[in-house]
């Protein structure tokens, strides 16, 4: 006989699940140790990270430094906060500067996209011997947040949208050696789309009938106990979570995007993803780290677009920075305004940055800029960040940091950004996890030199 009440049935009847969260941990907690001299801030419930994949050109955007090649229509104006700003590229973003802190004294360790992206997503250097076992920031957050999960959650803690994976950018870094409950929910709404969470109205009833049938029919998931293989338990956990998400009455509010909203956010794949991120925060459905990726920032050539002015009606059609900044400007400014308007910004940290900056001075012979780890820029809003400020300064071409402007008196590295993200979510960034296949501890954020001479820390200046 089939067992009459399985774990899947429990879901169906709406019984309280054991752990509360959408994805239940399958394995016992790993041995953890924290040296804990640090006081995590705990000033946010959620982090939205806008990942500008490819490396934006700092001197044309957040650290605007006009040079002889800079086109007139970048239209530099001095904002009332005294910030020189490229109005031609990021006009709407000026509206959120009073809530934003810009760091101009950031740098990167890497000059290749895949290695830089690994650093940005994990907060650690790529290491061929350990890369596979290292969990990304989002997965560490998911692991940490498991204890705070609620039965009402219908989203997993780690969500990633539109990562432009490939040989150049590398891949989205996932849960490493952590268990499946730390895995990201990924989807891609660029060309073609792939978003199987939304039920069509005329299919809802039949879908539920199908599920009812499946639950009693899938004998391969009905065996219980430790004798069931881990992969089966993982699959069942993912499938149960997917079902719960698809069935949730709130999910439509996240993925059904109104045309007016879409237009405000730029009606681009990036804008749509930012709108979904906003909806996820409003719904309070359990998402804690939402990674929204925007490819195309790798402007080795035609950084100022094509000169053809016939397509000026929408500047984004000109390519280069006009396209990327155009999408970013509408999405970022609308996201920040909406979060502020709903009082969600106070408890949501928004970070905007890429993996490195771009070469200062002359353009290359194909009218672009190459990779430059020496300077990159980041923007931070919400989650306790004190806005209206610029931290750090660079020389007149934006190629060299001249003023660090924070207590470490050195560039801000990916480690420090990672520590800041953990801190606002109340996570001790010095924690160490055991149990990795290599036998080495995974330290959430490591000091950049083994002696601690260059120690990593949160960027407290953002908050004071």
């Amino acid at each position: 006989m089939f067992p009459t009440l399985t774990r899947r049935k429990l879901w169906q009847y709406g019984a309280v699940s054991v752990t509360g969260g959408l994805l239940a941990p399958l394995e016992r907690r790993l041995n953890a140790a924290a040296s804990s001299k640090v006081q995590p801030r705990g000033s946010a419930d959620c982090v939205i990270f806008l990942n500008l994949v490819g490396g934006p050109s700092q001197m044309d955007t957040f650290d605007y430094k006009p040079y002889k090649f800079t086109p007139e229509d970048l239209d530099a104006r001095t904002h009332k906060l005294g910030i020189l700003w490229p109005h031609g590229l990021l006009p709407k973003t000026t509206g959120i500067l009073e809530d934003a802190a810009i760091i101009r004294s950031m740098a990167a360790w890497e000059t290749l996209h895949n290695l830089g992206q690994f650093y940005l997503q994990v907060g650690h250097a790529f290491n061929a011997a350990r890369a596979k076992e290292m969990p990304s920031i989002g997965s560490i957050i998911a692991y940490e947040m498991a204890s705070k999960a609620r039965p009402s959650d219908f989203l997993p803690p780690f969500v990633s949208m539109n990562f432009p994976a490939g040989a150049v950018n590398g891949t989205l870094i996932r849960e490493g050696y952590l268990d499946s409950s730390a895995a990201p929910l990924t989807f891609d709404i660029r060309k073609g789309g792939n978003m199987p969470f939304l039920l069509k109205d005329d299919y809802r009833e039949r879908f539920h009938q199908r599920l009812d049938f499946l639950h009693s029919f899938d004998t391969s998931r009905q065996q219980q106990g430790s004798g069931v293989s881990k992969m089966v338990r993982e699959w069942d956990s993912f499938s149960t979570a997917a079902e719960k998400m698809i069935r949730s009455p709130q999910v439509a509010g996240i993925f059904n995007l109104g045309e007016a909203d879409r237009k405000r956010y730029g009606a681009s794949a990036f804008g749509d993803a930012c709108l979904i991120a906003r909806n996820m925060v409003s719904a309070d459905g359990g998402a804690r780290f939402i990674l929204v990726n925007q490819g195309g920032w790798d402007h080795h050539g035609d950084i100022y677009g094509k000169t053809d002015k016939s397509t000026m009606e929408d500047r984004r059609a000109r390519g280069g920075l006009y396209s990327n900044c155009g999408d970013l400007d509408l999405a970022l400014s609308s996201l920040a305004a909406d979060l502020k308007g709903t009082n969600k910004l106070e408890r949501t940290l928004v970070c905007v940055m890429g993996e490195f900056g771009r070469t200062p001075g002359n353009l290359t012979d194909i009218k672009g800029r190459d990779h430059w780890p020496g300077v990159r820029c980041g923007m931070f809003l919400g989650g306790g960040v004190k806005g209206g400020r610029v931290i750090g300064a660079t020389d007149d071409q934006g190629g060299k940091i001249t003023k660090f402007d924070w207590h470490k008196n050195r560039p801000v590295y990916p480690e420090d950004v990672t520590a800041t993200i953990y801190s606002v979510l109340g996570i001790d960034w010095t924690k160490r996890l055991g149990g990795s296949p290599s036998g080495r501890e995974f330290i959430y954020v490591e000091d950049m030199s083994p002696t601690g001479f260059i120690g990593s820390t949160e960027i407290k200046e953002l908050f004071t």
Partner: protein
Amino acid sequence: MLELNVPYDEFVREMITSSAVSTWTTGPANFVARHRVMSGDGYSEMNHEDTADELAIWTTRLFLGVDMECVSCHDGKGHLEKVSLWLAKRKRAEVWRQAAWFGKTYVAPVYGRIPEFRVNDSEKGYSLKTKSVTRLPRYPADLTPTFVLDGTRYDARPGESEREQYARLLTSHSQFARAIVNLMWAELMGRGIVDPPFGFDMDRQDPASPPPAPWTIQPSHPELLNALAEDFRKHNHDLRHLMRTIVMSNAYQLSSYFPGEWKATYDAYFARHNTRRMSAEEFWDAVQDSTGVYDSYKVKDLDRKFKYVMEASFNQDFAGSHPQLFNLLQDWGQTDREDPPTKRASMVQAASLLNHDLIQNRVKVTKGGRLEKLLAKGDDELVSELFLATISRPPSAEEKAKSMQLVSRNRERGAEDLLWALLNRADFILVQ
């Protein structure tokens, strides 16, 4: 290799030693070409010593199961004591001496950015003058080509180049057969006798001389590993024979369900079958085969279309023509085959089986599809055939009763629902 049943040692010797005027016409030389490291503009200029280092690391990893990546940047001492006894004793210079077997190997693009390469033996030897673009600076050391497992040095036999001697030493060493039988075992069983299969610790292999405590012998079944290796060598490095031996074993035939209390420490003993998820390509092709509804995929630069995505040479082949499928397969862990694909499960994979447009359309009664054909037959046959087409076994009496009941209510709709449910069973997507 399997199709032609080339002996594995011959296949490896060819990859290590091949030269080519163009890798487009001499296939085996692509092995050397793909591990090139470029410097300068990233396209035309090869960094010779870095390339030789990569070839040393990859040949040792793939063909001997020993990973020297760690000691390619620093000595093992002070770093790897807790990871590997053997690696902790290794010095960086031993990687360079292993790389020196490729000291004369030359790789260069034939025409700039086009991925076509020339491979020959015209270089002057492994030099310390080149600045590494991937690793820490090198320092003076003895650079005579030396086989890292047993210290055999280059002996300049007449008619045998450095690469040829290396290929001979490597393929005749006992670890060569042990590494491949373990890798094949791991591929089929989900876990190696030494696991991970590229993580051999050479100081923990011999049960007759066990390592000092707390270390233990590394293979879970050292005698089995050696016996499989011996049998593989006796059968002329025949991979088909090896695969047949493993899949015919009692261990392989076990169920993935263990009817008792299971502890994590049992994993190494193969007392139940390890479950694996189908790869992205296997998944989609299985959906096509199960539903009998096929598409056709064009391969870039070829004037041919294929029925299965497995036949595409590169995932981008159908990114333009089938963007939805491309995105779906990305979520199932498909890569461009530069990086290994992931077979890890995820929420979006489960969601796509439940509710993706592409799956929804596949389970509908379609002209020429499996459902249309089966609907012409009796309920009994319809149900049995659908089970066979999806989870490769006939239904149990109870499953049959449930399925017949579903189909009897509304034949067409019931058959669609049954097919959907079969595709959503865990044992469709998991190989158990």
